[in-house]
């Protein structure tokens, strides 16, 4: 009798356990991965972020076509507009975390927004991948283990410019320069890094004056005439997106680039496309992830093909980096074998990942990806309906990023 009851009880419990497990297993298989996007869809950063969002959607489609992360977690996207304002970015990030329950936030256009949402992501233990904004302060100081950066940071870009400019200055006998940079987090940090590095690499070069147009400036005429009046040997610019387009347009109309060398300013693939007809050929520009530099990497060739099929245009630097951000997350999840944020965060630490820009790794001390910066000469190319860079120089991440000792020092202050 006891034995019979025991067997029935065992059977019932087994059935219940089986049901629970099956249900749990089903739930796990169906659990979507909530992925947040906090980008400047409107406003100053819209030029770059539209491409970024489109690339994220493309990557998500590709991954979901294979069942999602780990083949069983379909990605559900939640896209928010920061309006390039830190307070809005924080509000949207919190909403993404608390209401939409995202496990990771991809962003942002403005470095000020990235710096603002970093502590939010850390507080709520949510991953944060910066793919466009690139102030080095995002990962250098107030370090958060939840924040990763897949874009060459402002120091790396500044170092790349400095190496190129120092070489040119030596060759051409330049002595004095002025800077023009957008008056916000990224503009300030990039300008400061550039000036500081130039002081180290070429101490004879003298900074004559600094100009700080506000973010969103539409008319640069007064800056242009003021800079020309200074008669510098060259000018270094740290302007981006719409501001950069307006600056380039107006400076060209003044014959600025014919009179004053302007080496190493940010001319991304977006500017190459948007200003295809008007951009001065022969300019020495800087960019972060030009697709044409890595068409030999299958992942890049695939992105360009699919992006063109879907959106009928070429992917910009911003598209490339946001696409890489999604695939970095995918590889982190695969290494962790789980979508659990803590495990993914730990898995990404120091991890080597496949990207459209080749095999790259996250540096342990600051979670900065070892991605390159690119300098080149703007020139027409028969293969593209817009100018691209010729004589392209790739400055590798490990050759341009800030020494670890300096980061340790900065954090201790």
């Amino acid at each position, binding site marked *: 009798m006891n034995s019979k009851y025991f067997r029935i009880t065992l059977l019932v419990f087994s059935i219940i356990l089986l049901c629970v497990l099956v249900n749990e297993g089903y739930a796990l298989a169906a659990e979507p991965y909530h992925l947040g996007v906090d980008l400047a*869809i*409107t*406003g*100053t950063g*819209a*030029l770059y972020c*539209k491409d970024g969002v489109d690339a994220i959607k493309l990557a998500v489609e590709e991954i979901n076509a294979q069942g999602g992360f780990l083949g069983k977690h379909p990605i559900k996207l939640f896209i928010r507009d920061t*309006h*390039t304002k830190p307070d809005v970015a924080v509000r949207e990030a919190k909403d993404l975390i608390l209401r939409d329950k995202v496990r990771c936030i991809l962003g942002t256009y403005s470095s000020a927004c990235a710096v603002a949402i970093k502590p939010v992501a850390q507080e709520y233990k949510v991953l944060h991948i910066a793919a466009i904004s690139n102030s080095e302060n995002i990962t250098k100081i107030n370090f958060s283990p939840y924040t990763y950066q897949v874009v060459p940071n402002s120091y790396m870009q500044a170092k790349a410019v400095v190496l190129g400019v120092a070489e040119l200055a030596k060759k051409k006998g330049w002595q004095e320069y002025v800077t023009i940079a957008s008056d916000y987090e990224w503009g300030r940090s990039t300008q400061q890094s550039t000036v500081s590095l130039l002081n180290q690499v070429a101490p004879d070069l003298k900074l004559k*004056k*600094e*100009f*700080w147009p*506000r973010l*969103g*400036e*539409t*008319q*640069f*005429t*007064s*800056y*242009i*005439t*003021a800079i*020309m*009046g200074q008669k510098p040997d060259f000018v270094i610019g740290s302007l981006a*997106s*719409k501001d950069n*387009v*307006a*600056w380039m*347009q*107006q400076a060209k*109309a*003044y*014959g*600025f680039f014919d*009179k004053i060398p302007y080496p190493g300013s940010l001319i991304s693939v977006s500017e190459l496309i*948007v*200003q295809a*007809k*008007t951009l001065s050929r022969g300019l020495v520009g800087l960019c972060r992830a030009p697709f044409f530099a890595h068409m030999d990497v299958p992942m890049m060739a695939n992105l360009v093909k699919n992006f063109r099929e879907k959106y009928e245009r070429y992917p910009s630097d911003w598209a490339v980096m946001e696409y890489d951000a999604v695939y970095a997350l995918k590889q982190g999840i695969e290494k962790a074998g789980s979508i659990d944020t803590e495990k993914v965060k730990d898995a990404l630490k120091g991890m080597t990942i496949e990207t459209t820009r080749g095999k790259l790794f996250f540096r342990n001390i600051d979670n900065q990806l070892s991605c390159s910066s690119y300098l080149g000469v703007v020139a027409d190319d028969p293969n593209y309906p817009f100018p691209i860079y010729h004589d392209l120089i790739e400055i590798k991440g490990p050759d341009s990023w800030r020494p670890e000792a300096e980061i340790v020092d900065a954090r201790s202050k």
Partner: protein
Amino acid sequence: MDASLLIAQFMSGLSRGMMLFLLASGLSLIFGVMNILNFAHASLWLVGAYLCYSFWYLLQDYAFGMWVSIALAALALAVIGWIVEVILIRRVYERDLPEQLLLTYAMVLIIGDLIKVVWGVEDKLIARPPLVEGPVFVFGMPFDSYFIFVILVGFGVAIGLWWFLQKTRYGHIVRAAVYSREMVSALGIPIPRIYTGVFVLGLFIAGLAGAVQAPVGSITLGMDMAIIIQAFCVVVIGGFGSLLGTLVGSIIVGEVYAFSILFWPQGALVLIFIVTAVVLIIRPWGLFGTPMRA
């Protein structure tokens, strides 16, 4: 310091001032006559810029494409202005200022979303014709030739408005309506029609301003919010409702900005607000406004 540099800086300040004048004159006119503080004025200005882009896109193969697009955009915005006045604005003439602001601010949000729907979020760029593509030289210093056109348009609008308000019968009625709507109405002149006409004229100038701005850089969402504050500074300095005040205020703001960039680059915007604050404290009705308006 080189005199030619000062002249170049003055010219760039003047061009900036003229851009502001084109925007602020419509704002000031509408407030002066109708007592409506149109917070959406800059958003409608932005629509003018986008309209200019659309017309230019259709006409870009023609040498005159950009010039015609500027005129068409101004006319199109005037038509939009007429519709907006009839459907929305005339319903708040008798309401308090907060309600007017609420309506016009709602319009800012609606227009922003409509722009996204119609033109998308990508930046738009108008390629200038060769005539205004390069520099002209003023006392040896280069100056963007397009801004010569901007300055001419600015002064042209100022003279045109002055002539209209001072020398035409309709202008006299408009000026009279500023001081006494009741008296004008008692003379059998339909005030609503005057208001509609003034609003349409204000938006025509806003459309012209937006279209003139369009080929300067890229056209993008958010430009309106960046410029509206400076436009308000202009009308506060010059005096709401005063054409001469708006012109002088625009030139002051443009020149203060230009010369502070030369001498104190970090403080360019701050100086504008300091000037505005000083005027507000000393003469709250602006340099050329009247105490009645204050």
